[in-house]
């Protein structure tokens, strides 16, 4: 494994509904430094798409609600979305 591959990891970030409109896309791959905390990753995503900050956001890591304290791993699936409104 090359040094670059060791120090960065690729995660996919998914957007839905209002956050997909705000980000202008439904999915993006982003590189994060190895051992990044989920909260740092989510902060970086919101920084990259400032219109997201107009919404109250919820975050998921690998299809579970995230508290932000988890460590991100290569290949993880992150999701950023607004408070849900099914029913």
């Amino acid at each position, binding site marked *: 494994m090359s040094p670059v591959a060791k120090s960065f990891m690729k995660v996919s970030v*998914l957007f*839905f*509904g*209002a956050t997909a*409109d705000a980000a202008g896309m439904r999915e993006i791959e982003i590189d994060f430094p190895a051992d990044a905390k989920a909260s740092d990753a989510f902060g970086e995503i919101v920084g990259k798409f400032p219109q997201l900050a107009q*919404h*109250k956001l919820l975050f*998921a890591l690998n*299809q*579970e*609600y995230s508290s932000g304290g988890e460590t991100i791993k290569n290949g993880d699936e992150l*999701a950023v*979305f*607004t*408070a*849900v*409104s*099914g*029913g």
Partner: protein
Amino acid sequence: MSDKEIQNPKSKIQNPNDFFELTTESLNVGEIARRVVPPGCGAIVTLDGFVRQFTGERETEYLVYEAYEPMALKEMEKLINQAHAEFQIENVGLVHRLGRLEIGETSVVISVAAPHRRAAFEACEWLIKELKRTVPIWKKEVYRGGETWIEGAS
């Protein structure tokens, strides 16, 4: 969105008569309700949630539902398991429709079968309240002159 794209997994929940599904097809409330009835039960409570025409002064033209499908199914499964832990119920069916829905079309059906009605009513109410709070599904309301993604309260 076609139904083929929605991966409704075989349930891992303990009770093989429970079910939870996402679909873009029309929902048949009666058929869903009957699927949960076991011989030891004396009551089913079924919620038929459908598209409302008026929200206050605003007239809805139609709704579009979208889900984070694999996570939504996981959360639906968790709700069913929690409902069994908290209420004296036998079977639960939970089906949510996705895509474009016209006024009056059913968006969600929750059926709970129980030996006695009280637990079925309570569990059904709890399930819809929790579904609206935790299951990653969103509705876009399209009305005359605009559209907006509804953001939940939580």
